[in-house]
């Protein structure tokens, strides 16, 4: 197991290394001079422009620029925002916990609701509940999130006036208001994951239900619920772990749109505006941080696989 974890961690390091290289290359790839973008109208001052280029290390060879940038990045210095003219670290720290809070609750929602709906659909196969849940899952996967968002805003905020249209309230400030403001964004963020989780859980349970050991358990006269929750679910949830890993990535991707629509000052909104403003330091930091989160979650899922199902660990070890 230890060898397996070390191997996975080493792979994660290599991936992160490449991510930093590619994200730094952005500054070279994107059109326009980074120093001109940073200075705006002050770029007309050639002396200032040259000084800024030197301060940003743009006058050095690419590899030197990258190494210096990486060294600063590791120390927590992500550079200064071209647009806001404040340290990127400050901007990110203000917003990271908002996105993580939303992402965490959306993830919890998708796991709990997805698994419950998946079990319900599988145990009522081809029945009314199964069909209803299937329709819900199909809508969740196929309907564009921005459309669902606007629909929910219209129904819950404008028509019934029970939830706010937009905004974010920190839980420390007012817990009740924080919950009200989080309901719609969390639901919208979680919806595609709920749908995927539901379908995966349903399919896995139905697969396991056809296994010989389940038939044996039935023939031994074990109760239906005992078979389902003690024997079937444990084995059926292994593929769900894969979906969970992927959900973390899609939740952060989804936060970009949801934060924009619901006007939540999180990382998603920050990076959307950074892309529009060509605010390269923010984009670079976002790419690296999100890659780190996704690589870490994939690593944890891989490790969890090894713990939950020893066959995986052994097979990988043999390979």
């Amino acid at each position, binding site marked *: 197991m230890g060898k397996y974890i070390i191997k996975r961690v080493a792979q994660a390091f290599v991936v992160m290394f490449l991510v930093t290289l590619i994200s730094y290359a952005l500054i070279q790839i994107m*059109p*326009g*001079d980074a120093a*001109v*973008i940073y200075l*705006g*109208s002050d*770029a*007309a001052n050639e002396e200032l422009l040259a000084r800024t280029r030197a301060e940003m290390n743009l006058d050095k060879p690419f590899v030197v620029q990258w190494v210096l940038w990486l060294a600063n990045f590791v120390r927590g210095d992500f550079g200064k925002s*071209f*647009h*806001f*003219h*404040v340290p990127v670290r400050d*901007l990110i720290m*203000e917003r990271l916990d908002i996105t993580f809070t939303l992402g965490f609750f959306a993830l919890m929602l998708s796991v709990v609701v997805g698994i419950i709906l998946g079990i319900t659909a599988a145990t009522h196969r081809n029945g009314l509940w199964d069909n209803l849940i299937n329709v819900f899952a199909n809508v969740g996967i196929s309907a564009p999130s921005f459309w669902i968002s*606007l629909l929910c*805003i*219209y129904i819950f*905020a*404008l028509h019934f*006036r029970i939830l*706010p*249209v*937009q*905004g974010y309230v920190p839980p420390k400030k007012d817990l009740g208001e924080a919950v009200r403001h989080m309901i719609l964004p969390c639901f919208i963020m979680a919806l595609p994951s709920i749908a995927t989780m539901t379908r995966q859980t349903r399919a896995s349970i139905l697969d396991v239900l056809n296994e010989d050991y389940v038939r044996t358990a039935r023939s031994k006269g074990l109760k239906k619920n005992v078979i389902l929750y003690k024997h079937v679910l444990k084995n059926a949830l292994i593929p769900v772990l894969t979906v969970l890993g992927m959900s973390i990535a899609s939740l952060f991707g989804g936060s970009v749109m949801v934060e*924009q*629509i*619901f*006007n939540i*000052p999180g990382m998603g*909104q*920050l990076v959307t*505006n950074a892309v*529009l*403003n*060509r605010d390269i330091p923010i984009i670079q930091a976002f790419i690296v941080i999100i890659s780190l989160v996704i690589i870490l979650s994939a690593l944890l899922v891989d490790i969890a696989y090894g713990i939950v199902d020893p066959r995986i660990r052994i097979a990988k070890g043999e390979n």
Partner: protein
Amino acid sequence: MKKRNWKRLLASALTLALTLGSLGAAVSVHASEDNGEPVYGGILNVSREGTMGENDLYPHLKMNTQAYVTMAPAIEKLFYLNAQGEMVPQLATSWDVSEDGLTYTFHLAEGVKFHDGSDFNAEVAKWNLDQAKAVVDELGTGTSNGAMESATVIDDHTLEVKFSTMYATLFLALDVYMASQKAYEENGVEWCSKNPVGTGPFVFDHWTLDSELVYTKNENYWVEGQPYLDGITFKVIKENSVLSASMKSGEVDLIHYAPSTDLMDALRDEPGVTTLISEQSSGFTEWIPCGLETSPFRDENVRKAIAYGVDFAAIVDSIGADNVVYSNQFAIDSNMFYNSNVVNYEYDPEKAMELLKEAGYDDSNPLSVELITENVPAHKLMSEAIQAYLLQIGVNCEINVMEGAAYFDNVIVGTWEDDWLVNMGTGSTAYCPLTGINRLMGANHAKMFPCVYFPDEWVENVVESAAQLTLEEAVPCFQKANEVMFNDYCGMYGIRCALDTVFIRDYVRNYNMDNQIIQFGTLWKTE
């Protein structure tokens, strides 16, 4: 006799009731006119179309009209300007102007303190004027501000300001925000740009960049009884659909800048929301052809062919809302700078094709044009319409939509391609289009707009117009400049004039559209 008196009395009462009734109706339409008893309390939630939060809130960094609104709750001026360009007292209670118009003596309000406890006096006022002048001198984007010769402290509450040269817009040099000198000296410019410290009715609380800016009530405000509100919160809501929904739900009480048609469509008939539209234009967007020597647009026939071949008036009318009007010059017809001698190039595709032929372009050798615009919905729509018109007269046309930073990089400071026809904005003040044109032509022109060509006669007239003693005297030269640019040279097209638009909930009272900057201290909410 008695019966007749009763009838007269009844008729008079009825007339009075009808008159009052009609007045009442007018009041309900314009929230700004309702001056009932002020109500204390409540937070005013303010937003605007697009962004407001990334601007620096230290007034002497750069000229930035967006930031001026967001710093207004905290930072005041010696006076503020109304829609007619008249000076209304604020931190200066009165002033005297010398006969030659070159010396202003301000009498300042007494007992005024900044939010950091320091005193507002003539010394601080002088410091602020000097700071503003230094920025303008460095940027070279103004004319009147640079003309300030000296500011002299006469006593603690009297300040004398002298100018070297007369300009029609001289008073703009004095239209300066008064920030705390102490805060600047103790914390530096970077801190001040994110922490506005002034004498205003509201005290800066916190600012989450690009999200919200919060002010709380100044309990020690120098104007007795004000402010009425407990605080002001500026919310950055970039999606117009969400912004209009927030206005409908009451999460936003005031949208102070709303040029887009979709907001107008969504909110115009919304119960409980009043729409206020200014009668003057505070900004123009126009199409400017590349002015480089090598550009085909340097040929007069080509410029005029575009003018005849595209029905700009029809395009602006069809894609604009109530808050957008077309003009054939830098002024709208209700403005004193408007010149009725400037004629429209009536839409005539046949004539356009003839002119193109004279310029050497036909089917075998078609003219190619690239329309450059920022990623703004109305501008993109306009580009598509222009493209359709140009294709009809045999001009190959492509649209190139740029995001804000790329647009700045390529259009404002970059070198244009010869075939570029660029959509550009010219800011202005409602009372005087000259202010915006002055900025376009500032000393930085060569660096900021290197590819825009201004005919000499136009420049001469604009400069002469700016050098007049009063706005009225500046009118003839400015009108002549418009004639030169739009009639003779035909160097700009399709001017889309934005009329300031405000959406306001009916329970917000005492809003005055007449003021150039919102006076937050005088507003209150009845709900």
